[in-house]
């Protein structure tokens, strides 16, 4: 944030929107409700439910129950609880199930509900890794992974969110980080071979993730003038530091270096941990700047 002069602070007290009161909806005006103040909960909630579901999803392929349990818990406890805390009326959260026909948010809550029930069933039932169950759970996981960004994606008022690459980016980010957590779990639980075997997928997921970010930036830039404003604030504006250090540095460059070091399955626990920490930070930064930089089209 720019340092504000005292005079400016008296006349136009800063409300965190980055525009002066007389520029509201006359200049591109930033979305704040879903990121500023208590809105930060939503950022965390989306992140946790998605990486939880990502972990669950990847664990299905390895029929790894510990992964399922952790994924299930992260999605529901961290993702769900934080989400409910964000609400103005948490005790009425059940009401969000009322409009699945029109509301993406409502549909998401249903999916989480079904995921919670079926996931619990899969975890407690022996021999539940059958193809049908896996398929259903896999689809549910993908839906949950994309839930947060899908909720944002339907908001036509914010071109940066309704950009076409938002959904693919969110799916790959959930899968990629879920994969990283699982790889780390294997590495620390003595299954180094498995961890090493996963590296080939890490390479694929990482590059797809990288590609999706590039495509998001490119696509949103070219979507329209307002989308361009959002990307500008990502690259050169207020959030450029977070974009550079977080998204580019921790989300892409450092994982790339680590991936190159471990190329061909040459993994070790420490490096996997380092890459996991790095991509989590990078992904959080990526979600943060996307949520923070979305602007509305001026009305006049």
């Amino acid at each position, binding site marked *: 944030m720019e340092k504000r002069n005292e005079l400016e602070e008296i006349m136009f007290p800063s409300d965190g929107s980055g525009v002066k009161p007389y520029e509201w909806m006359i200049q591109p005006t930033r979305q704040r409700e*879903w990121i500023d103040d208590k809105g930060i909960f939503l950022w965390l909630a989306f992140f946790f439910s998605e990486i939880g579901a990502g972990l669950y999803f990847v664990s299905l392929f390895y029929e790894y129950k510990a992964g399922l349990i952790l994924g299930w818990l992260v999605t529901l406890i961290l993702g769900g609880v934080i989400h409910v805390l964000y*609400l*103005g*009326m948490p005790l*009425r959260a059940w*009401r969000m199930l*009322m409009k699945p026909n029109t509301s993406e948010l409502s549909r998401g809550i249903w999916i989480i509900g079904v995921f919670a029930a079926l996931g619990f069933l899969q975890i407690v039932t022996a021999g539940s890794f059958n193809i049908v169950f896996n398929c259903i759970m896999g689809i549910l996981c993908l839906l949950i992974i994309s839930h947060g960004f899908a909720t944002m994606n339907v908001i036509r*008022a914010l071109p940066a969110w309704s950009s076409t690459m938002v959904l693919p980016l969110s799916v790959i980010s959930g899968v990629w980080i879920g994969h990283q957590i699982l790889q780390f779990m294997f590495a620390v639980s003595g299954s180094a071979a498995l961890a090493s075997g996963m590296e080939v997928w890490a390479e694929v997921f990482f590059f797809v993730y990288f590609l999706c970010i590039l495509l998001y930036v490119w696509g949103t830039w070219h979507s329209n003038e307002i989308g361009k404003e959002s990307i500008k604030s990502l690259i050169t504006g207020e959030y450029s530091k977070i974009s550079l250090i977080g998204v580019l540095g921790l989300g892409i460059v450092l994982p790339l270096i680590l991936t190159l070091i471990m190329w061909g399955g040459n993994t070790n626990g420490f490096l996997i941990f380092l890459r996991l920490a790095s991509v989590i930070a990078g992904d959080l930064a990526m979600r943060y700047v996307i949520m923070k930089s979305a602007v509305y089209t001026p*009305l006049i």
Partner: protein
Amino acid sequence: MPRWGMVIDVKRCIACWGCTIACKEEHFLPPGVFFNRVLIGETGKFPTSSKLIYPVLCNHCTDAACVEACPTGATYIREDGIVVVDDDKCVGCRACLVSCPYQQRTYYDQKVKDREYFPGQGKTEMELLGEKLYPLKVGTVIKCNFCSERVDEGLRKGLTPGQDEEATPACVNACPVGARVFGDLNDPDSEISRLIMEKKGKQLRKEFGTEPAVYYID
């Protein structure tokens, strides 16, 4: 069934902010909360530039993005077209608020409720009374309701919204230059329908595709 709408004559408007302030008094809104605003901008280059003045409020859209986004059904369109929030159903998820391309909604939380018009000097009698007369629910989203209380009460008394002051939204009554006309869009003979026809009324940012019920003429 009527479809309530509004025409704002930007040629008449002189940006006095009467609508904005009258609305605040009508609904006892705390500092920083507005159901009505005036957007002031410019277009063109010196010396032929011109000033733009657009009073804005909830557009009570037919294809309202907020209604679509609401997961609980708290936000809905009444039969007469007024978009309202049922604060008994609202969970405060703010999906509606984020979805509204016109940004006409406000999340009312404790922080907003605690604001004072004279900061640090306590609430005035008016603010305290307002909390009783027009209670807003903390943790819900609030917005312009086309003064539906006035409209409903007026109709009950046999009055005509848009003509009788008592049955007409406060911002319309307040306007000193008659820039606001409220009435039934479904009635082709109403003043509002006539104005939209004759003066080629335009919706603000029609391209958002939400079909606003507020039209502008100039």
